[in-house]
């Protein structure tokens, strides 16, 4: 784990949507250790600040791929970087999507909005080793059709099963409308033999987990990724505390059996 930021250069940049950008970074000299799907880096926008951002693809070599949605000062600065720009990187931090727990089981990968970014490396890993798993389902919800990430990758995910739904359809949208839980009806899985990986805003993860439990998926086999503001990312400052957990160290990926009682408490 790297405690001081290492310099990385932006070698590729792609606009995913009107407010979301994917950056590919290459180390100037020393590289951080390899990431597992679900882990995050602290990305430092020089002169602005540092924020946690998950890896959105795990590539060979020392390159890092992150997808960032511009919501405030730091994420906006990162999204504004051009090729050749510089970023500071610390990491890898946090727990991963433990795909090994899903070996032999059906898989539900359920994303809301930018939540698809941390889940994409998991989908890649499962597709690279399809025989190790049961049926894969990728379900994604977004506010509008224009907010959907990675649209060009869906055809590859549709081969197992993938479906998207939006909250607010635009003119000409012929896809599904409604919350992401409505897609569960079409997904192909046996609830008692299913591991679910869920990432999105907390309300979405709660609604999804409840629907899954209602269908018979075990709470400890529902993995969610919890976000809190992070400062040190090394378990020292306490900024990311949620009850007994320090999410930079014990999270962001936790079982819903552990998360549910903590999310039910209004403020801890």
């Amino acid at each position, binding site marked *: 784990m790297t405690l001081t930021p290492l310099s990385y250069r932006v070698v590729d940049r792609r606009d995913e949507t009107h*407010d979301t950008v994917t950056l590919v970074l290459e180390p100037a000299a020393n590289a951080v250790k390899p990431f597992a799907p679900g882990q995050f880096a602290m990305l430092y926008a020089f002169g602005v600040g540092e924020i946690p951002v998950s890896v959105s693809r795990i590539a060979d070599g020392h390159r890092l791929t992150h997808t960032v949605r511009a*919501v405030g000062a730091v994420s906006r600065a990162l999204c504004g970087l051009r090729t050749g720009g510089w970023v500071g990187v610390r990491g890898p931090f946090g727990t991963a999507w433990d795909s090994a727990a899903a070996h032999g089981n059906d898989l539900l990968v359920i994303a809301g909005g930018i939540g698809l970014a941390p889940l994409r490396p998991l989908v890649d890993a499962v597709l690279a080793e399809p025989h190790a798993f049961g049926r894969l389902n990728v379900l994604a919800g977004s506010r509008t059709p224009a907010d959907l990430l990675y649209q060009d990758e869906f055809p590859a995910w549709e081969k197992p099963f993938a479906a998207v739904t939006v909250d607010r359809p635009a003119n000409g949208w012929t896809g599904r409308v409604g919350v992401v839980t409505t897609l569960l009806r079409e997904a192909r899985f046996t609830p008692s033999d299913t591991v679910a990986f869920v990432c999105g*805003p907390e309300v979405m993860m709660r609604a999804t987990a409840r629907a899954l439990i209602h269908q018979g998926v075990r709470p400890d086999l529902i993995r969610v990724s919890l976000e809190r503001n992070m400062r040190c990312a090394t378990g020292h400052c306490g900024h990311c505390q949620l009850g007994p957990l320090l999410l930079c160290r014990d999270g962001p990926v936790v079982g819903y059996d552990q998360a549910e009682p903590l999310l039910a408490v209004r403020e801890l």
Partner: protein
Amino acid sequence: MALAREVALPGGTRIFEEGEKADRFWIIRSGTVALDVHMPGRGRVVVETIGAGSLLGWSWLCPPRQWHLAAETRDPVRAWEFDAAAVHDLCAEDTALGLSLVTVVAETIGDRLRATRTRLLDLYGPPGSQGSGPVP
């Protein structure tokens, strides 16, 4: 199931319109149906799509028995169509059947209400954000 008849509806069929008498309901076997509402100046706005295994229509169950949304098939749909008056009569005769039917319909209404409330929270936005502007 004796009260049901199998129907096949091509894509783009208007199944019912807002305000019309709700005298039938369907259980979708395959395909998708979009529920829409007419908004002055914006035309038809789809508020939800439903697919295989879903109940289409519950307004027949209680007064004023008028559709509060309109429904159109997105693609070819196969469904079981039920005549609401006949189902009402059967439920009046067999109250146990009536209760289980009402429970199933109430569950559907509950699901849709929950989904609607969750959507009102702006489900996929980060906390505190009010829609998102372009990246500067």
